[in-house]
């Protein structure tokens, strides 16, 4: 029973954090709400026994990426954007599109109830999420994609430095 309560609390706070990110006017508040959401998602990974991914989520997302976001927001010295009072018809289309997407996703999840895989036992899933299992898979089976993701990150770093240089080359 405790696991269900934990899941529901984490899911509610995660959705609340995402909602707070959507509605806050100031980008700094948005970033802080998103950090709350990311911590709750890390807790949800823990309820799935994916311990390694949960730690990586806190380290990479909540630690590195959101610090980068906050750093850029404070570097640019941003204020909240002025409110536009006139009606924008593109917002109506955006609302219809996103509600259609939500109903489509819910329909797919609901209608494929009997196709979902049988859940594994607790021992299997707990052994499945450890760093030991994932490292064996990552460094043996997925060694080449691992090297390629390193090259991608190097290219992204060089590109970010090139783009934010003061005088364009």
């Amino acid at each position, binding site marked *: 029973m405790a696991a269900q309560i934990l899941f529901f609390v984490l899911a509610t706070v995660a959705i609340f954090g995402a909602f707070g990110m959507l509605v806050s006017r100031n980008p700094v508040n948005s970033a802080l709400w998103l950090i709350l959401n990311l911590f709750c998602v890390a807790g949800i990974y823990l309820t799935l026994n994916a311990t390694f991914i949960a730690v990586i989520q806190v380290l990479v997302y909540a630690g590195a990426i959101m610090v980068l976001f906050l750093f850029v927001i404070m570097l640019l010295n941003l204020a909240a954007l002025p409110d536009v009072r006139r009606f924008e018809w593109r917002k109506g289309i955006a609302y219809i599109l996103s509600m259609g997407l939500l109903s489509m996703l819910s329909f797919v999840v609901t209608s494929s109830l009997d196709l979902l895989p049988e859940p594994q036992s607790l021992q299997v899933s707990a052994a499945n999420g450890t760093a030991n299992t994932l490292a064996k*898979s990552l460094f043996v089976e997925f060694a080449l994609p691992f090297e390629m993701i390193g090259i991608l990150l190097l290219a992204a770093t060089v590109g970010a430095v090139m783009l934010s240089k003061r005088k364009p080359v």
Partner: protein
Amino acid sequence: MDITLNWYLYLSAILFTMGVIGFLFRRDVIVMLMSIELMLNAVNITLVALSQAMGNPSGQILVFFVMAVAAAEAAIGLALVIAAFRGKLTIDVTEFNLFKY
């Protein structure tokens, strides 16, 4: 009542839709980038839930790669925001219309 796989899938659908709403509604480029991070997170929840339900660690390796791509995307996107802010002194996307006419 057990926690089944569909609850995770429903949570993921809700978070993905909130990311789409944020991307379509906000005019702030930085909040749009954060919405993309939210969408990537929703997909990661699906991948981890299915990976644990099927007993196959490959899905979690894919989550690892998605996180690396998200980090690269955030770095490049924020560098572009800084470069665009230098010219226009705003981050409102409706002001960036250089290619429009």
